[in-house]
């Protein structure tokens, strides 16, 4: 009898946490992060300017956020989404981030890698040069 009470109590507690958790997940459009839709990245308003700038940029009809900002393998893609997703949420929640965002070296390498992959035919001869150092506005037109 007593064991049953305890199990029911535990079940209620877990249910409450799960309920609030899934409500929060839906309210925050958590499911949208599993898609490839660029609008998902602009769920947080901090990305609004970058989303708008992408829509003005030359790559808007050929590449979405994930095409340049995540590696192309499935493992690398979801590992990067998880890592960036966590840290972006962390800084957005805490509010501690600069107004003009600066890309981190790792993410810059990923973006450069994406350039080289799609534009392989004309970039084969180019060695260790960062594409976006000069072509900084190909993704987002200010």
């Amino acid at each position: 009898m007593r064991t049953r009470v305890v199990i029911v109590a535990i079940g209620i507690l877990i249910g409450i946490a799960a309920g609030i958790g899934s409500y929060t997940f839906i309210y925050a459009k958590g499911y949208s992060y599993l898609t490839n839709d660029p609008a998902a990245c602009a769920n947080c308003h901090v990305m609004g300017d970058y989303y708008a700038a992408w829509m003005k940029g030359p790559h808007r009809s050929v590449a979405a956020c994930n095409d340049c900002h995540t590696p192309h393998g499935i493992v690398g893609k979801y590992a990067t989404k998880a890592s960036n997703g966590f840290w972006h949420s962390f800084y957005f929640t805490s509010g501690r981030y600069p107004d003009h965002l600066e890309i981190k070296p790792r993410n810059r390498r990923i973006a450069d890698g994406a350039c080289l992959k799609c534009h392989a035919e004309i970039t084969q001869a180019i060695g260790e040069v960062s594409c976006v150092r000069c072509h900084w506005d190909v993704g987002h037109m200010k």
Partner: protein
Amino acid sequence: MKEPTSRKRLAGLLFVTALLSAAVAIGITALLVNIFQRKVEAKNPFYRVVTLDENTVDPVKWGQNFPMQFDGYRRTVDQVRTRYGGSEAVPHTPSQADPRSVVAQSKLEEDPRLKVMWAGYAFAKDFREERGHAYMLLDQTFTERQKVAKQPGTCLHCHASMVVAYRKVGFEAINKMPYFEARKLVDHPVACIDCHDPSTMALRVTRPAFVEGMRNLKHDPNYDPNTMATRQEMRTYVCGQCHVEYYFKGPDKRLTYPWHNGLRGDQILEYYDTQTDHSDWTHAQTGAKVLKAQHPEFETYNQGIHARSGVACADCHMPYKREGGLKISDHHVRSPLLNINRACQGCHRWEEEELKARVETIQERTFQMRNVAMDALMALIDDIKTAAAGGAAPAGIEEARKFQRKAQFLLDFVEAENSTGFHAPQEAARLLTLSVDYSRRGEMALRTVPVPQTASR
């Protein structure tokens, strides 16, 4: 029946699980509330709490409608040094005459050559690093310059919120008043109403001397910045109303911006030399009729690459900042060096340290040139004194005095400008070169050799 230990274990399990799931629930709820707040922020609400009109001078009232802008505005009380500017809080013993307990560092103590340059003028008595906007009226009221000279009401044009006072009493009338009589008409340093239309919040200029100055500059007596300037121009003009070179014209002490020939230092000097017989004072050591240059930021900025690229004062000194989902102008007006991410990195894709180093390189070079020009001027002042005491030919001394006037005005034009050359590095270098050349020609005049009257251009 269960063993008692097993029952205890179950109770313990229940307790720990409850604690853990409570912690999880608290965490998720906190996150939920945070997400809710962020979503609300993105909706850009504006609440009209009070009605503002052309008589609302008190910025506290405006702050009720615009709390975020007001918060920034109030932060101009901060005193932070940069390498070549900014102000440092220096303790001051309050007295009956001067109740301030904190002032800024004395520039006269930092460079005593300034006392020689300004000998006989009130600036040689008290000249401190400028503090933030919040202190403009306080510091003007209590500077020792008020004690050694009788200042006119003209000064308030740029040290107080004047919109209502000018409308009710008048620009000309206040210019003529003694300072402390005019001072009774005003209560606030520069306030919201000075730059914003209370019904639309649109930027506007409200200073008569600026409008007159722009008319003279553009040779168009009907020019009206409030109807003819672009929005981006207005983001510079509101600052240019006051951060300029000026003089008090004639016995009425009419505030005048000397832009008739153009905005560059030598064009302004030419205006003073040929279109007026104005001098600010007679130099106490040499008898030269000399001029004091006053913070010509607007003029200098206009010679620089940022102005040429269409960047306004507000873009760097009041850059856009994010407050939740809102984008507002940072009303904490200050040195961009204290706010590099917002002020510079929107356009310049370099690290903060690199950008700071670039600015300081320009300032260091300008400061070195300024010191060379200052030494040249000190030598000229010294030699004019010696020549006069030794009974040199009056014609040569008079000519040397004229060169001293030119040399020290152009030097002061760079010295008094609050960017140490950054607003227009090559223009600052050009003016300092002209200044050194005028000091050189002044020395030649004393030696009674034929002096070339113009530098090759």
